[in-house]
Each structure stands twice: as C-alpha cells, then as structure tokens.
C-alpha cells in the first residue's frame, strides 16, 4: 500500500528524516513510534503530500506521489496532530465543504457523516460554529471528515491526544473495523498502550532513522518485555551509540 524509498527531509541544515525506507502491506494498522522530535510528523507530512521530500520516492497504492499527487490524495485521508480548521464555519458546513473538495457530495456520504457525528457523540454540535468547539471536539470533527471519502489509506498523527476515554475507545474500535474492511491505517503515537492494542505492525523511529520494525512478537524477540520497556531500551541504545 505504501512504499517509501530512501526518503530524506532537511529543514535548512537540520536533517529531520534521514533515509526512511518502509513497505507497508494493505489492510493493516501500522504504528509509527518514536520520541519527541524523532521525525514522525515530518514523515507523515511527506507521506500525505503536504510537504515534498528533499529526496527519495514515495508510492501510494503503486502510484508515485510526486508524479501523480492528485490521485494519491484522492485515496488518502489525513488527520494532523493539531486539528486546525476554519473557525468561522459551522461543523456541518465544514463537512459539506470537505465533501465538495473530494467531489463526493452525495446522499450516501452525507449519511455516513451523520452516522459518524453520532458515533463520536458530537451530534448536538453539528450546527455550531467550530470556534466554540473544545480541542477534543475539533479532533473528532477532523477525524470524521477524513473518513467521508472512504479512503484506502488513513494517515493519523497522534490520534488519541485530546480525546476522552470513550472517544479513544470508539476510535480504537473504528481503526480495527476499518482495517478489517480494507483500509490501511498509518498512525503515529507515543502512547505504548495504543500501539500495543491496535497495531499489527510497528516501526520505531529515532532521530530520523528507523531503529526497529516488525510485529509486536518480532520486536519482543521472544523476551517477555512490554512494548514500553522495549521502546525505552531501543531509544536508549541509540543514545549510547551516538555518545560513543
């Protein structure tokens, strides 16, 4: 579903992502883990075509993102880490705008939107101006609007930040259901519990490099570590290596 070929990104002379290569099979939940400033958001922005990579190739569903961005974006849904939206629109107006933007404004999709509003329990805010939403409500609105065009690939940056326990639970279940019904999900997180619970495959990134990759079991390598211990161990080793 996704193929990254030696993707690099520099901000000025600071290299945020140093040669990322990944291959992600369809219909799974893929977890992207790493400490603060590791380059997760940067990688995601390149993956969703928000920012071009400094070098390297990105393929979504067999299609080059650089050569055919419009097609890639049509089949991708994106939820950024900070849910900034047009504050002066009402939630439903925003949804209609998104539907139009993805040329998808039909009865079917509108029904889907109504369904998600109910699922996330923000039904009564549907006709409110977004300005008055709480952080979590905005987050939910952004998540639901990223799903309306039924993307084949959903890319989510820190999905659980700002959600209440019920919202988080709903979302985790939704991820599972979506993956089972043919959507590939790429999510970044620092919450180990989330990764452990929903991800089929995991990659750990530190300082712009992938340092470990595989299923939960593969990462454990037979040891009986929790993911948290593993994460701390792996990122620690990196620090030591760099130090020496």
């Amino acid at each position, binding site marked *: 579903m996704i193929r990254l070929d030696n993707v690099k990104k520099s901000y000025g002379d600071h290299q945020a992502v140093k040669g990322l290569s990944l291959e992600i099979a369809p219909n799974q939940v893929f977890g992207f883990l790493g400490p603060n400033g590791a380059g997760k958001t940067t990688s995601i922005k390149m993956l*969703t075509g928000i920012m071009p990579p400094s070098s390297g190739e990105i393929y979504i569903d067999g299609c080059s993102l650089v050569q055919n961005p419009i097609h890639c*974006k049509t089949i991708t849904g994106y939820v950024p880490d900070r849910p*900034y939206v047009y504050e002066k*629109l*009402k939630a439903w107006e925003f949804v209609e*705008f998104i539907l*139009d933007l993805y040329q998808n404004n039909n009865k079917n999709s509108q029904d889907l939107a109504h369904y998600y509003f109910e699922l996330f329990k923000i039904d009564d805010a549907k*006709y409110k101006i977004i300005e008055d939403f709480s952080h979590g409500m905005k987050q939910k609105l952004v998540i639901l609007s990223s799903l309306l065009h039924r993307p084949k690939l959903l890319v989510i940056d820190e999905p659980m930040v700002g959600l209440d326990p019920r919202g988080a639970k709903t979302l985790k279940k939704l991820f599972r259901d979506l993956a089972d019904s043919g959507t590939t999900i790429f999510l970044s997180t620092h919450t180990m519990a989330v990764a452990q619970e929903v991800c089929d495959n995991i990659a750990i990134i530190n300082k712009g490099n992938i340092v470990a990759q595989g299923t939960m079991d593969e990462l454990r390598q037979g040891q009986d570590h929790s993911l948290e211990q593993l994460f701390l161990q792996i990122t620690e080793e990196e620090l030591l290596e760099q130090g020496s």
Partner: protein
Amino acid sequence: MNLRHLIFRNRFRSFVNSSNGKNFAQWLIFGSFLVLVLVMIYFGTFSLLKKLDTLNGTENYGSALDLASSVISVGNLIKERLLSMVILSIFFLLMFSNVISSISHIFLSKDTELLISSPISPYQIFQIRFFEAGFSSSWMSFFFFFPVLLAYVQNYQVAYSSLFPFFLALIPFLMIPASLGVSFALITARYFPIKRSKRVFQFMSVFFLTIILVLLRVLQPEKLFQINGIHEIQTFISNLQIPFYQHLPSTWLSKIAISSFTNQSQLLFEPAVYLFGTGFFLLFLVNLLGKLFFYTAWCKSQETSSQGVLEQDSKQNTSSFYSQLPLHLNPIHKKDFILFFRNPELWSQIFLIFAMVGLYLYNINLLHLDKLSIYNVARFISFLNVAFVGFITTSISMRFLYPSISLEGPAFWILKASPFSMSDLLYKKFTFFTPFILVIGNAMTLLANYILDVPWWLFVINAINISIVCFVNSLLAISFGALFPNYRAENLNKIFMSFGGTFYMIASLSFMFIFLSSQGFPIYLAYKHYVRLADISTYHLSIAALSILIGLLSLVLFSVVPYKKARSALISHEDGCI
C-alpha cells in the same frame, strides 16, 4: 533581574530570532524603499516651504494672494498652519491605531495567560502591555516626523538643536493617544466580554479610519493657497492667524516647534505646560485604571461567546449557509464567501473602499469645477487618472487579495492534503476578488472620464488600460501573498504591513509606471497622425514600436513570472504549522 526586563528581553529575542530568516537582499530592498520614502517626504516638504517663502512680502501684486503677502508674511503663516495640520492628522491616526493595538496587546496577546499564572502582579503585566501597545503604534510617527521637521529646520535656517524641544515634547504628545486608547479598551473590556466586542472593534476601527479619511479631505488643504478676491483677504489672514482647534495636543506641539524655530523661547512655556500636564495626567489615570480594572477585564475577556453583536447566526439553528449557496459554485469560493461575511474584520473594509472611491470622484469633480479649460490638459489628466485609479485598486488588492492565501492560516493542511492542486488554489483565490476589482477600477475610470469629458478613443484606451492594470495588480497581489505568507498573523494588518506587502507595492507601482509610460509616445503619434493628420517618420515609428514592446514585455514579466514562482512556493511550503 527585574521581571519586566525579562519579558522585554524575550520579546526582543523573539523579534531577532524571527528576523534571522529573512535574507539580506530582502532587508536591503525594504530598507531602501523606506529611505526613498523618507527622502521624498523631506524634499517634498523642503520645496513646498521654499515656495511659500516667495509669499513673504513680495512686491508683485499680481494676485490677491500676493496682495495679502504685502500686508503680512502669509508664507510663514501658511507654513505654521501646514505643520499643525500634519500633526493633527498624525494625532488622529495615532488615536486610531492605539485603540486597535491596545486591544490586541492587552487582551488578545497569547502569552498573557502564561504571565498571569506566573508570580508577576497583574498591574506589572498591565504596565508592560501598555508600553508595548503604545510603542508599537507610535514608533512609526518618529520616522515620519523626522524628515518633515528636518525640512522645517533647513527652511528656517536655525540650528539642528532647535529640533530638541519638539522631540522632547513628542513624548507626552505620544502618551496622550496611547493613554486614551488603552483606557478606552480597558473600560469597554470591563463591561463587555472582549471576544464579543472584538468584532465590534474590528468593525469600528475600519469605520473610524474611513471617517478620518473623509475628515482630512474636508479640511481642504488646497484652500490654503486660494483666495478669490480682494474682499477675502481680511478673512483669509485672520483665519490663518487663529490656530484652528486651540485646545488640541497637536496645536500645542506645533506651537512648540514653531516657537523654537523662530527663536521665541518665551512662547515655549505655555504649550509645554499644557502638553506635559495632560500627558502625565492621562498616564497617571491610565495606571489607576489598570490597577483597578486590568485583572477583572482580562478575566472577562477570556469568556468565549460566539453570540457576537454582529453575528447573524447567533441562534442555535440547524441551517447550513453553505448548502444554500448556488450548487455549481466552486467549494473554495463558497467557503471563502462564508468566511468573509462572518468576519467583520474582512467585510468592514468595504467601507474604506467606498470612502476612497467617493473621495476620488469628489476630487476629480473639483478639478472640473476649476475649469481646466485647456482641452489637452483634461486628456492628459484622464490618462494619468488610470495611474491614480490603479494606485487605489492596488491598495484595495493589498487589503483583499494579498492576505487571502495567508488567511487560510493553520487550516491550510486541509487543502494541501486534498486532491486540489496548488495552482488551482491560486487561480480560485484570484477569481474570487478580481471581478470586483475590475468593476471598481472601470467604474472609477469611466466616471472620471465622463466628468473630464474626453473623446471616445481615449475612453476606450483608458478602459483597456485600467482593465489590464487591475488584472496584473490582482495577480501580483495573489502571487506576492503566496510568496510571503504569514499564516499566524493575529490580524489582517499584520499580513499586509510587512516585507511582502511592501514588495507587492513596489512591484505594482513599477509595473504601472513602465506599462503606462510606454504608451505615452505611441498614443501621441497616433493622435498626431489620425487627428492632426500629420506625417510620422519611420524613426519615430520605430521608437514607438520599441516602447510598445517594452510595455508588453513588462506585462509578461509582472504577471507570469511572479505567478509561477508563487505556485512553486505554495507546493514546497515548509511552514511549521501546516
């Protein structure tokens, strides 16, 4: 270390850090433009003053004005009046900008919340904010006053040290509008939640500016140089001798300036007492208000309420304005349309446009009344008129088109992640406002041509020219707006009063200059040939062709190149917030 110093140091560091990124060439262009403007102000003032000197007791009684000069030094009186008028206008502008900046500094600054939770007393925070608000809206006036006053010193042929009283008195003078602005903001915020009143303020600020524009025009500075007959001399002179608005700080300041230029130091005392007295009294008052009100007002300002006074959709209704708009409209246009009308900061600027258009036509009309009897002058003016109208539409584009990319703000990711190409976005933003600008530009030009009564062929040329000028200016505005975006601006002014805004201004003025002046000679030749039926030499013809070529080249250069650059800039954006 003093906490206040700490905060100022942080502000200063943020400023230094944020300007690091701008490269040297940008600073250089910006700086030289600023210097150019200052030099122009200086020479403009200097030559005007020199002209006025000829009115001081000359012997040629050719006009009523000369006759008046024989009685009294009219020139000096006019000079004094002129200075006090300039100071008065600055005073009005300062009042206006202080109200706005105090609201944004005192109540809408994002770091106030952090400071309130730190162990600094609210009163100290207030003092810091007061200083920031006053400083940010006043420092520009120093820049402006300097060349004007320098020209006066040159003209009066006195030592530079006589500038000293003026700049000393400028301190209390600047304190007055700052204190008034902050007090106004404090009191309003004490009684109304500011997020609600912010919309009203945004609306009022533009309204205020509009009124000032009209007021300045109604003062009719040109009247200073007109007397129509002997019988008016008496009133003319006595009008000049009484300062208008005796009890305004601007009058005191201009008195101080003139007294020190004319070495009448005994006259310095009275206005200085008034000015320093009022300044420090208001300073005391605003501190008192701050002590009493700041904290409660700030708390109140944090209440969110979307039920703004100007909000149409205040009731919880289940309507979607979006779906009521015509279906075939583009989604970007629909979205921008709604956002435009829900944001008073944006739509209230329409008043400004009306004021500018109205004032302009009024001016043209005055010209006509003065009977510019020479036929060719009217034609020349109608041609020049295109440049003037172009200038007005440039400033309209600056306020509407230039910010439109930046206004996507931190929500820009929505468009970037969607299957929507960036060149399409530029195009959509361009087509949103440009039709209106074309209509305004053409309407103004045609009305002015009608008033000036020009022949039909000039009508056509002017209409074509203004359409091209409006078109290219809008394109430049969008392109420069995309090349120098500011997605995190707190308000609209911050977006266009910037590097990019200045560059846009320079580019569009240069374009108009090159494009319009390249036509001058060819039009003259055509007129000579077809109307006067004169022969044209091939030499002249080739020069005309060359100049048309230059005009066309500038058209391409100023439209295609920036647009292409803007498109690739939008694609490769690396701003952190998107």
